């Protein structure tokens, strides 16, 4: 049986296996999210709302925020390929991008303490 035939068989089997696994994974994810759907609210501290909520805090905290923000922004500027990459897609994706950036800023803000402690 020629090598090529074997290769084709591998391809058939391998891709079959991968597709099977991917579809299985898909179901698992659907199931997982469906089961845990009740208890929503993931780590509020990570989400932008916190910013607002925190501004209310004492001055010291506000200062901390200010700095963290300044740095975050600065990073955004310094970050070399921050402008959309050559493969940048339509605005829907940029929206997603920004969401995640906000998410990251939030994260950065509340990582801060750990980092310093």
């Amino acid at each position, binding site marked *: 049986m020629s*090598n*090529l035939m*074997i*290769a*084709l068989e*591998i*391809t058939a*089997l*391998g*891709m079959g*296996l*991968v*597709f*099977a*696994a*991917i*579809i*299985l*994974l*898909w179901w*698992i*994810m*659907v199931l*997982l*999210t469906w*089961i*845990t*759907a*009740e*208890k*929503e609210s*993931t*780590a509020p501290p990570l989400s932008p709302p916190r910013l607002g909520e925190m501004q209310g805090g004492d001055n010291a905290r506000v200062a901390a925020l200010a700095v963290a923000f300044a740095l975050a922004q600065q*990073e*955004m500027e*310094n*970050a*070399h*390929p*921050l402008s*959309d*990459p*050559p*493969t*940048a*897609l*339509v*605005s*829907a*994706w940029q*929206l*997603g*991008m*920004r*969401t*995640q*950036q906000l*998410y*990251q800023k939030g994260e950065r803000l509340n990582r801060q303490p*750990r980092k310093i402690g």
Partner: protein
Amino acid sequence: MDLASLLPELLKGILHFTWGNALMITTALALMYLAVAKEIEPVLLLPIGFGCLLANIPMGGMTAAEGMMGVLYDAGISTELFPLLIFVGVGAMIDFSPLLAQPKMALLGAAGQFGIFGTLILAIAIGFPLNQAASIGVIGAIDGPTSIFVAAKLAPELLAPIAVAAYSYMSLIPIIQPPLMKLLTTKKERMIRMDYMPKPISQKALIAFPMIVTLVIGLLIPEATPLISMLMLGNLLKVSGVVERLSKAAQNEIINIATLFLGLTIGATMSAAGFLNLATIQILGLGLLAFGLDTVAGLLFGKLMSVLSGHRINPLIGAAGISAFPMAGRLAAKVANDEDFDNFILMHAMGANTAGQLGSVM
């Protein structure tokens, strides 16, 4: 001993210098130039280039078995430790919530497979033995550590060219993809706006996900366990939120050191003697092809999904399905617009390892 007998000793460096060394050093400088000036995968191409430089300095001894590079190779490449540690770090940087929010996107990960198997078949057609062909095919996984992991396992003799192909092409995606995108999709299709309103994912789901995936994939495709499990371990450290220290260690110390040493040792395998041969050129060719196939397959797959979804899916995301996940060294900001890519490493690694497994079976 007199001066006459010492001179050749003093000049042995120059006397052992070959044209091959000169060529490889030029390659090394080129790689470093791409890394520094064009910022193409600098965290990997810079060390690889430097390692290549060292490998072509005659009698330097750095790349000898007992030299530093030899020591690092035995410590981290033969043991597959470096790529796996990189995966731990990458896992700790990935955010799976976008995938969990829209599970059907997982299908896009399958597109990457066409590149792998297409290349595999071609490599065999050209006459590579199965183990080598499988390793070459994995370039189509468009994922450096995976390629290195599989090559180190199945065909260490091809490690250098495969690693170079994987990383340099991975960085060429911005150049390779757009024309194919324009060619294969209509302006109307590219204009499709997808509503991005994922339902909130509970912390529980995010924490359970890496455990379940490790378990399920581990049982289905044992050979995929190492890569998947380390990726998921890193992710678990991050999402669990109770081991900040370990998560930070994975995202910094561990991945940075592993990346630096990985790059150096891979580059150090690029000695003129071992690298300058037909196989290398073939592999570079096949690698480029693998990337092309991936993109085309991804786009067609995207179009299919677009049609099936009644044009509510933008086919361009099909191309995203095949693309590389954020390399360790990228700035966090860059990760942001990779969110749709993040989701597919899993499948890449799986595909990669399935091919690897089957290849090794025979």
